């Protein structure tokens, strides 16, 4: 009996094509939770201008889906968050596969080339450069799967990201103040209504990583720790008291949600990071099993489509 096996090359090509599809899903179809929250905001707002703005957002989503166009022209900095099982057979090939898939997706979807050389100002043209696409790793023990989430993080909302190491005395109060102040100062610049994330940890980069992780959580989903969940609710209400509203037209929906992720801190530090996602909060997730089966938990309808 001859055992039929997929060759390593075929397998890698399959992951690459699945990643191109993942990027397409993120660029074209806003996640369902974000879309529902925007629809709710449209139904809730009363003012003519507010409604006009939110209507344009909803019309835009419909056109993007119908015509398979990127819903926003700023297809962002491409950020991959990889949870890879220690026994996933192609772990070592993933960085190359993700970079190649990014270049191919840029051409085929197409995405906007957004990678610029710091020294010369030149655009690389294919969304690939040093540390772009960004790949964030988490290794999962006793697993042979890979779960890959991509975020297309636009420049306008990233421009207000902040990180600051507070004193323990400033603590949680200081962290919440940073959230409210960021939302107030951002005003209409970050394409509100926004998803706003707070990360807390021992060092600047841990806090920033927590904040980015918080941005990936679906709208309406609370932190498992009830104490953190309560802070999320309170911060959301506080931001929506400010009154900027959709695109700064004035109104009660400045934020769609607030998410908080907390790591332990150092006795002397209380590092906080606030990150904002525009309403076009594009993210998509795929799972690849060790035998090459691909699923899209965030975009189930794509599993039926064979061709990208």
């Amino acid at each position: 009996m001859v055992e039929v096996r997929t060759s390593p090359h075929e397998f890698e090509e399959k992951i690459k094509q699945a990643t191109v599809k993942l990027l397409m899903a993120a660029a074209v179809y806003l996640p369902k939770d974000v879309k529902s929250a925007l629809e709710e905001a449209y139904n809730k707002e009363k003012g003519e201008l507010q409604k006009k703005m939110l209507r344009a957002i909803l019309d835009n989503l419909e056109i993007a889906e119908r015509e398979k166009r990127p819903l926003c022209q700023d297809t962002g900095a491409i950020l991959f968050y990889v949870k890879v099982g220690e026994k996933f057979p192609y772990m070592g090939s993933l960085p190359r596969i993700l970079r190649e898939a990014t270049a191919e997706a840029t051409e085929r979807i197409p995405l906007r080339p957004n990678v610029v050389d710091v020294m010369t100002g030149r655009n690389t043209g294919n969304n690939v450069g040093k540390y772009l696409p960004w790949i964030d790793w988490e290794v999962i023990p006793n697993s042979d799967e890979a779960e890959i989430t991509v975020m297309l993080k636009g420049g306008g909302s990233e421009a207000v990201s902040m990180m600051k190491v507070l004193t323990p005395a400033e603590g949680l109060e200081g962290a919440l103040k940073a959230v409210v102040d960021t939302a107030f100062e951002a005003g209409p610049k970050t394409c509100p209504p926004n998803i706003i994330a707070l990360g807390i940890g021992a060092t600047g980069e841990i806090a920033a990583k927590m904040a980015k992780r918080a941005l990936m959580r679906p709208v309406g989903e609370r932190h498992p720790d009830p104490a953190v969940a309560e802070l999320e609710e309170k911060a959301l209400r506080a931001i929506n008291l400010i009154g900027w509203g959709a695109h700064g037209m004035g109104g009660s929906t400045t934020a769609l949600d607030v998410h908080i992720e907390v790591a332990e801190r150092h006795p002397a530090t209380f590092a906080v990071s606030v990150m904002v996602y525009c309403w076009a909060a594009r993210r998509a997730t795929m799972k690849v099993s060790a035998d090459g089966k691909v699923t899209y938990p965030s975009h189930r309808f794509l599993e039926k489509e064979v061709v990208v």
Partner: protein
Amino acid sequence: MREFKLRTPISEEEIRKLSIGDIVYLTGTVYTLRDAGHKRLLEMLARGEKPPVNFEGMAIYHMGPIMRKKDGEWEAISAGPTTSTRMEAYEYDVIEKVGVRLVIGKGGMGKRTAEACKKFGAAYAIFTGGAGALGAKAIKRVPAVYWYDLGEPEALWVLEVEDFGPLMIIIDANGNNYYEQMREKIKGNLEQAYKSLGI
């Protein structure tokens, strides 16, 4: 809420009729101009060189598109606005020197731009940020592109648009600024927000 249809070139008289909060749908020629484009334009003018297009009475759009070339013609795939505040450093001079009548972007602009709008008869409008697919639908043709060496987002694209909108007037030719007024109006809410958090 008042709604207007405008066609380029726009006269000073037409632009002075508009007030903050008005909605505009624009037909005609629009030039994209972002950070690098503004800088290059002003550098060219400083050297006494002629820009590749005539901006007089025209609209500029703070936008870096996704474009695709199909049968030798450019096609706009996604084309929503970028954050305008980055162009604040340049916009007064651009309005003064090349006679731009309408600046389109998102997120608002500052005092110098408002001053230029008042002095030279121009306005600043926003198109819904993130609405790239909707924006692209209004672009009927892309007749030319200049300064492609700046990269696809930063190049100067010439766009023929039809009923491009809704555009909302944020700074009018009297120098009124919708976002400045909104900020003043809601400033007091900040205390309320702190209080709700026990700060």
